[in-house]
């Protein structure tokens, strides 16, 4: 049995914000929610996406920190900035490819998801992944995920030339081995059809 890990399945998310509300209840940052729930484009869709810290193996936020304020635990959990060191420069905020770290003006430091270190270090599951009613967030073993879910759990990311491996996995279709975030040239868009609007109810009603 492998160790417990964090999995995100964006397709399951229902936007209920149980994760956002529960994050605020976590003992290390009470009253402050550190998970992000993105509403993609409410006019067009009800799609939403939760974003916890992906906990990069070689965290970019830490690489770019001029004050060496961002540390990793032995288990690979990337922590919020160390308060005495953080200079609030927001390099990490700009550099993170997942948009996770935020500069908190009130606390005057960068704060981010620490995978509920107070809970996971004592055998409990992170708040968000425990309460998530849709299973979009899960904290379990890879075996359990492979047994109960379709698709594949990957933690390999390509941002252009940059490769990133993360502690957190995302569920993707089986044929996908890594997530490739690429720049799509505008010229290629002009040649293609106008994008379909799959969630426009008026359009659905016109199909025959």
């Amino acid at each position: 049995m492998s160790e417990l890990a964090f999995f995100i399945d964006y397709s399951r998310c229902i936007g209920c914000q149980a994760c956002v509300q529960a994050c605020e209840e976590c003992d290390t940052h009470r009253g402050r929610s550190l998970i992000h729930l993105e509403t993609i484009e409410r006019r067009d869709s009800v799609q939403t996406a939760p974003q916890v810290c992906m906990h990069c193996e070689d965290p970019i936020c830490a690489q770019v920190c001029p004050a060496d304020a961002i540390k990793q635990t032995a288990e690979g959990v990337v922590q919020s900035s160390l308060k005495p060191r953080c200079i609030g420069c927001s390099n990490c905020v700009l550099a993170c490819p997942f948009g996770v770290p935020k500069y908190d003006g009130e606390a005057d430091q960068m704060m981010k998801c620490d995978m509920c270190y107070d809970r996971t270090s004592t055998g409990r599951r992170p708040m968000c992944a425990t309460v998530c009613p849709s299973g979009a967030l899960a904290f379990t073993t890879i075996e359990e995920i492979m047994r109960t879910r379709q698709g594949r759990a990957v933690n390999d990311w390509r941002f252009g030339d940059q490769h990133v491996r993360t502690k957190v996995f995302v569920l993707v279709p089986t044929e996908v081995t890594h997530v490739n975030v690429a720049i799509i040239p505008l010229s290629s868009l002009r040649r293609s059809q106008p994008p379909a609007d799959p969630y426009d109810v008026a359009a659905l009603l016109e199909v025959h």
Partner: protein
Amino acid sequence: MARLPASIPDLVAQFGPHLNREPAGGWTTRGEPDRIVPTHCCFCGQQCGIQLKVKDEKIVGFEPWEEFPFNKGKLCPKGVKRYMQDEHPDRLLTPLIRDEARGFQPIDWDTALDRTAREIRRIQSAYGQDAFAVLTGASLTNEKAYLMGKFARVAVRTANIDYNGRLCMVSAAAASKKILGIDRSANPWSDIPKAKVILVAGANIAECAPITTDYLWQARENGAKLIVLDPRLTPIARTADLFIPVRPGGDIGVFYGMLHIMVQRGWINREFIAAHTTGWDAVEAIVERYTPEYAATVASVPASMIVRAAELWGPADSSFLLHARGIEHHSKGVENCMAAINLVVATGRIGREGCGYAMITGQGNGQGAREQGQKCDQLPGARDLENPAHREYIAGVWRVEESTIPHTGLSAVPLLEAIHDGRIKGLLLLCFNPAVSLPDGDFIREALTRLEFFTVIDFFMSETARYADLVLPGSLMEEDEGTTTNVEGRVIHHRQVVRPPAGARQDWQIICDLAKRLGVGDKFAYESTHDIFEELRIASKGGVADYAGITWERIDREMGVFWPCPELDHPGTPRLYEGWRFGHPDGKAHFQPADWRPAAEEPDADYPIVLTTGRVVSQYLSGTQTRRIGALVDQYPQPQCEIHPRLAGSLGIADGDVVRVESRRGAIAVRAQVVKTIRPDTVFVPYHWPLDRSANNCTIRAIDPISKIPEFKICAVRVSKAPAPSGDIAALEPAAGGIR
């Protein structure tokens, strides 16, 4: 009684809703809890297990309860923030009496109870026994629901008791009882992931029953196909295999269009129908007319969608149908549900693993509170108030003469109409906020002003309580002990976590004290709610909803027990109708024919748009509790009118504009939310807010002839761009009915 005793802004300033944003003691001083108590969430019929943390006899937080099998620690935002209603600044801590000049004034408990008892008898001797009514709620425990039914019949001796479950489960209940013989979801939720096709009709599961989402998604991981019927593209519908954007009230078109195709293609189970059902011929005769083309005109969707639905549902090996208020809140709500259940029974796919049917209860004890005898036509154990044998049995349990038990009274909406026209003069109300939750809000609030005497028991000053002569401070779920029955029919145990704050009392003690003053204290001599449960077990024994074999100890040991459970050594009944033995005396399922008919008020030239109403995930019912929790209010602060860009464009409305939504009965002013995820002939406004933001100002007081459920899901409105509202009400905080 007459008008409000103070201005609304003054009442709001004094009693709220104010927003509680921090736990007792603040965020930083919580420390380790003194104890952690496993219990259940009080918001919605899923009744998720949750553990509440207690420090210094105050609830200061929660911890997921992963061992409870139904939700395994999962919660929605309401469950997460539920504990913020504890230690709330708006909490009522003394009885209050209305004073024309000075607003509500504190009085002592004895005076308040004496006065209530005296007024009950005064009104009854002046106007007749039934001129005093009792209204209750489906968020009460089984014990309190049982107590209220007995209190109305034995202590007040009025026929007129009904409950806010009348706005919730009654259509589903009636249809289920007529066809299958028992009013309960047929299957435990564990059957859902085992089904190969799932049909969800009129149920915004992601927002109204969020925990059920994981069951649906797990079914899909196992290869199930998902069909969703809804006028709005909900989060569940977004990735459904087939989303059918049916027009409000057009569902029968889809169900019978599917059945028509299934008959044609041989996808009905004729052997099962012959052996285990009655009434199929009448249904078959109706569905013969529902060609895909005709069905499409009823449903107002492309015929190809209906054909596709039949192709997914018809030949499947196993299937599960779920429905909720979307098909039930209609003046044909029972017929809609019957058509849906016909679709299940025609396949024979019921009563075995992965095959079945469920109605999704909405209120906290939506299931249990409708079994214990607080409906106007019902006695405990889901017994029939007009059945002589049932009356005789309950009279024995209650130690009264059968002839003294009143007969069927008025259901909730006609009861308010009887108040409006003066036939009912007095009211005792617990766990109900009709000023927000009943249709035709202006009419309902006018009715409340016409009562000669009105007592409300509540823990907060609800919008309805503002109209009361006396307000008695009651208790939260976590301040009392008892049971509820969840969406699956699983009876579960709510533990008392803390005591009510000084000045407030447990609801059941208030009722028992009133009974004593009404001269029947010997019949209400309970020492605890456990005593009430023990009597409820006896009262339900031999009834359809048989709790005789269920004890609080068994519930704790077995993580809930499913009724019927007639004996202590009976395992309970998670799945009904196994071996195709249905609940009717002949053991068969009884198909019910029902043809489509229009709503009470369809759109026309003057009011050309359909208004449909519903919930958002962060609010519960009329908002008395959830509009007082800051984090939930922040998530969705005020009602918005969802409107398709095509309709919005034709009306000159842009996202964020204030719009006036107006029906023949009333109007609201809210912000427009322009979204492509709704039919262009329909607008949606959630109903959790009061006053000029109450969607029920517009809804229609039309009810189903059988279930008496109001038609919340269809009324005709016009929508126009409006100037930003001004004045006292608009200036209130949105949680109180203002607008930003």
